[in-house]
């Protein structure tokens, strides 16, 4: 095991290696940021003035490009005046990690200026906007997608237009939405709806179309037909993949959020970010952007965990602890089910010895299990 290749194609890595890599994937960018922020001779293109000296336009804490500082320094030195002093700093738009880390806390505790909302109110506003857009889209999009996936009739009736419409960028409808729906939250929800809905119908339609036709045929030979074929077979057969699709789509909805929130009166987290940038509090800007990532990521982990509760048959072994799977792993988990046609003679369960064919000798067959009279 230990000698196995780190770069084995399509081979799952041992648990501890996975943990190491997950750790690195977060730490490596953070480390890069630390290096740029804390190693003084790397980048740091500006100078913060500590002593203005005899340069007339320098003031304390002013930041100037290094080249300008050098030029003024030479001028003052030639004139024989008091030399200005300063330290190398990064531009104001790249705060150091500790500043951003602090901002994660202080952004919530700092009293907002004028009648601006608190950060938690802004975040709440954004989440509300996303959820309304996504829920409204799902209420119509999911059933329509399932219909399109199940019946060719609906697929041919709906999908060509939706296919066309999904190429129209949702932000392009901004002005229209404001004209129709006003300047408050309604046009924002509408943008997220437009951005989500058309993809949703197509993606879910495709997922439902992928249901193994053998399952449908098996159900037909068992007497299922019509509506019940859809509710009892097609939907349960595709529900786990639909759930995964919804997780991906919710991620897309988040990417429409910022665009949606500049429509009409700017609101939510976008408003907060914009204001903070205006006040040049870039630590708060970074913290706010980071919060969107954290909210999205943790909500997805939560949904993954919820999936293992909702769909017990997807758990690999019920004795093992159920695992929440991040989306990057979903493909191999969900779509990688062995195809009957390429199944190995002994299924994995039997090979690993979890379940074995019980040795039922011929005489051990229950003879009183007759449920029907034999009438030859």
């Amino acid at each position, binding site marked *: 095991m230990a000698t196995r290749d780190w770069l084995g194609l399509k081979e799952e890595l041992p648990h501890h290696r996975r943990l190491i890599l997950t750790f690195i994937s977060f730490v490596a960018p953070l480390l890069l940021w630390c290096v740029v922020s804390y190693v003084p001779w790397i980048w740091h293109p500006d100078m913060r003035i500590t002593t203005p000296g005899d340069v007339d336009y320098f003031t304390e804490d002013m930041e100037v490009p290094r080249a300008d500082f050098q030029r003024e320094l030479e001028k003052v030195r030639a004139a024989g005046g008091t030399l200005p002093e300063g330290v190398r700093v990064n531009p104001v738009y790249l705060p150091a990690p500790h500043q951003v880390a602090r901002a994660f806390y202080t952004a919530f505790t700092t009293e907002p200026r004028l009648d601006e909302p608190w950060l938690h109110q802004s975040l709440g506003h954004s989440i509300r906007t996303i959820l309304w857009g996504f829920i409204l889209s799902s209420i119509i999009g999911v059933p329509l997608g399932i219909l399109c996936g199940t019946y060719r009739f609906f697929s041919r009736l709906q999908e060509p237009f939706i296919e066309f419409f999904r190429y129209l960028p949702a932000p392009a409808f901004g002005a229209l939405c404001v004209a129709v729906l006003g300047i408050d939250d309604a046009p924002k929800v509408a943008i997220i709806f437009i951005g989500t809905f058309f993809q949703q119908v197509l993606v879910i339609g495709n997922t439902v179309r992928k249901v193994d036709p053998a399952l449908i045929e098996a159900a037909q030979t068992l007497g299922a037909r019509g509506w019940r074929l859809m509710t009892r077979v097609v939907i349960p057969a595709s*529900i786990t993949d639909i759930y995964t699709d919804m997780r991906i789509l919710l991620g897309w909805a988040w990417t429409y959020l910022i665009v949606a929130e500049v429509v009409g009166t700017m609101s939510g987290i976008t408003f907060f970010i914009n204001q903070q940038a205006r006040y040049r509090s870039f630590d708060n800007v970074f913290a706010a952007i980071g919060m969107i990532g954290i909210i999205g990521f943790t909500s997805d982990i939560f949904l993954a965990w919820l999936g293992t509760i909702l*769909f017990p*048959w997807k758990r690999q072994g*019920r004795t093992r602890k159920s695992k929440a799977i991040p989306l990057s792993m979903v493909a191999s988990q969900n779509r990688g089910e062995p195809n009957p046609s390429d199944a190995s003679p002994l*299924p994995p*369960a039997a090979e690993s010895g979890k379940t074995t064919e019980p040795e039922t000798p011929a005489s051990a*067959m229950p003879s009183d299990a007759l449920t029907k009279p034999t009438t030859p």
Partner: protein
Amino acid sequence: MSLATLELPDYHTQSPEVAARFKKIEQRPVVLTVRNLKKSFGAPGHEHVVFDHVSLDVHQREFVTIIGPSGCGKSTFIRIAAGLDEATDGEILLNGQPIHGPGPDRGMVFQGYTLFPWRTVKQNVMFGLQMQGKDNTSAEAEARQWLEMVGLSRFEESYPHELSGGMKQRVAIARALANNPQVLIMDEPFGALDAITRCKMQSYLLQIWKRVNVTILFITHDLDEAIYLSDRILVLGVNPGGAREYIENPVPRPRTPEQFLSPEFLALKARLDHLIHAPTSGDEEEDKLPMIKMTHVGDEVE
């Protein structure tokens, strides 16, 4: 030594017991009638005929196997019987009534595992009963009985992915039988199983068939399996596609694996082998590959 050079009895010869058994079978009502069935693909004129003029009578509680080389349309035939495909011509009658589409009166076991992965073993068996409108309590009780019959009571709360291939197929059989079908249609049900499991499954199937009032239509390409299980064997051929022979199996019941070497068994096997592998025109050269030798001279493996 090949089968053909052995001194074997004529496969038509039946012991008195076997002959009496076939008499008895013939007196039972006909469950399934196939009349002049034809299946072809493509436009008229350029059509590819899979089979034509296939006729067949299956009596109640008879075990009929359909066998043939690949491409003979045995799966297509059985899918038409199940109502999953349409015949081009001819008809299939169930108890004298023409069939329309799939229905619970013809249970089917597929080669691939078609258990519903979102249902436990017990819920899988309950599916057909629920579709017939039975309430959950009685459906559950019936499902339990069927699981007991296939020896899987311990696994009723398991999900299909936790079972081995043989166990999955036993659940599939229980699921089909729970619907009380007239005919149980089985499309190479043990084809994906390993040799040992397959052998066990054949013996399970015979035991189940003895206890349940059901007629079985079985497809296989395995000659031993066909002879071991069935009363009569319909041999389909290719070029031209259609029925070659409808053979009464001379091997007496009850069947045991020891009979694999009995003279009747071997005689019938030789006959089936001859029918299925009979050279058709222009076919003789096909299994000799035109291969250039790519090893050292004198380096022979056989």
